[in-house]
């Protein structure tokens, strides 16, 4: 069959190839021009002294940006804040979402309501979420302090204005904002775990906890790895929520690296230096992801 079909098939394939290119071209051109090109350009900018403004000559300056960056304590402080933010939000979000997904997977009343509520933050623009929480946490008229007052607890806490607590508070808002995606994904994963597995384990006398640990969790592992990886990337790169909530304050305690680089580029006009920060961020995050995903792959193979 292959011998007979080979010549026409080959012709067909090259025609197919042409068709494919024609269909993909309208997508390819803008992506090349406005996505691939800027990205390559952006990476290269990190090795120049580019600045905002007309008639400023840009020259390659090799590793100068990185040498300067290595000694920039503020940037590393911000990078550390970014890591704390990204990891705490991702981990808390995962634990909270797993709990909610397990509950939603049970046959409980009011499940539909909880499910709808869990979706709503997903539908809200990050700017609106930030505005809403800013009002909630307002020290004088916010309902959080009023409720604390009603039960006799200290009610003059400036949640977003106090350097010692601003970051944890922002993390809570981040968890609230990001829970829907994770919950929905985990719930879909839970529903695809074959019920027979759990039943078999139950008949063998395994407790709820052991069934969860030895049956459900391993079956969910690929989905958990995928969603936590995505969450980590999204959280590390997130901007709007914290920008509107605190703009990096108080005293830089919530200055995520994305905010830091934004200020460097569009407030101080140091395009090259800001791009260098972007390069450092992508290399370090990329290295971490490689490490994490490879570890998970190996585990899966074992």
């Amino acid at each position, binding site marked *: 069959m292959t011998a007979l079909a080979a010549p026409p098939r080959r012709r067909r394939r090259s025609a197919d*190839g042409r*068709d*494919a290119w024609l*269909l*993909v071209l309208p997508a390819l051109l*803008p*992506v090349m021009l*406005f*996505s691939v*090109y*800027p*990205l390559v350009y*952006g990476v290269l900018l*990190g090795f120049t002294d580019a600045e905002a403004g007309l008639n400023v000559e840009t020259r390659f300056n090799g590793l100068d940006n990185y040498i300067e960056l290595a000694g920039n304590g503020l940037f590393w402080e911000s990078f550390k804040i970014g890591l704390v933010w990204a990891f705490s939000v991702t981990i808390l979000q995962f634990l909270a979402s797993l*709990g*909610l997904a397990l*509950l939603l997977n049970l046959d*409980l*009343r*009011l499940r539909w309501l*909880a*499910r709808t*509520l869990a*979706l*709503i*933050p997903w*539908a*809200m*623009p*990050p*700017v*609106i979420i*930030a*505005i*809403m929480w800013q*009002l909630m946490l307002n020290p004088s*008229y916010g309902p959080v302090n009023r409720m604390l007052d009603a039960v006799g607890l200290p009610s003059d806490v400036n949640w977003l204005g106090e350097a010692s607590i601003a970051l944890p508070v922002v993390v809570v808002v981040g968890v*609230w904002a990001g829970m829907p995606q994770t919950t929905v994904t985990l*719930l879909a994963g839970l529903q695809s775990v074959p019920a027979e597995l759990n039943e078999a384990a*139950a008949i063998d006398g395994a407790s*709820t906890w052991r069934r969860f640990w030895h049956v459900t969790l391993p079956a969910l592992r690929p989905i958990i790895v995928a969603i936590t990886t995505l969450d980590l*990337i*999204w959280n590390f*790169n997130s*901007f*709007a929520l914290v*920008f*509107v909530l605190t703009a990096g304050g108080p005293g830089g305690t919530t200055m995520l*690296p*994305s905010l830091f680089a*934004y200020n460097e*580029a*569009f407030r101080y006009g140091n*395009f090259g230096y800001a*791009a260098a920060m972007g*390069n450092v*961020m*992508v290399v370090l*995050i990329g290295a971490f*992801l490689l490490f994490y995903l490879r570890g998970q792959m190996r585990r899966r193979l074992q």
Partner: protein
Amino acid sequence: MTTVTKTVGRSPWARPLQYLALLAYMCFLAFPLLFLLTTAFKTPRELQSPDAGLLPERLDFGNFTSAIDKADLYTAAGNSLLVAVTTTLVVTVVALPAAYALVRFRTKMRAVATGWILLSQVFPFILIIIPLFLLLKNIGLVNTLLGLVLVYAVWSLPFSLWMLQGYVAAIPVELEEASAVDGAGRLKTLRKVVLPLLAPGLVATSLFTFINSWNEFFFALVLIQDPDMQTLPLALARFVGAEGQVQLGQLAAAALLACIPSLVFFLLIQKRLTAGLLSGAVKG
């Protein structure tokens, strides 16, 4: 008997504890929303008084009407709508043939495209926005809605492709072959067989693009400085800084109005959305 109850019945505390946990989650999720909703319906006098209750005395739409009356919010909503609709049209027209080709013709392109889709998620925005800003400035598109549409279209394309691929892959190729055997040309097959089957997925994907552009903040912040060109998220963020502390009720009302398109969309397609996302992921 006892062994059966032991494995099936579990502890008598399980159910109440589960409900308690569900209730706690619901409070955490719903409280901010409830607060926003009630604030939007309170009169300024009510909002000023320290001992007003959580619920408004009556449904007062004053905040909504005065929020809509604000010229800059009105313009901003119009801009957002224009940008989101145009972006959605562009992305749909461009992504549909590409998604079809990537799934149906097994070429190397698919691996490259998937790689690009994933890569575009990892890169920090700062690396993309500086060159885009310079590029758009060179061709005179900074501070224009057209520039914003271009950026949003390119930005949404990877994800739309990803979702659409999943929907295309779900259409059995045998249907197309059968149609070809019946003598239909390729275009006719696409129009009469593939497109109708793809319609729900196409709707979900384009709505998703619409919402993403409607909600986007960062690119707009960098690319738009002219107040006449600002989008709704930008206008709202500035409103907070300028007079939001005083006009609490109006701010809440405007925020609620800005959420309506996405809320309607999410409630409509909540089932399909997860299915689409996952099929894209699994079959990708």
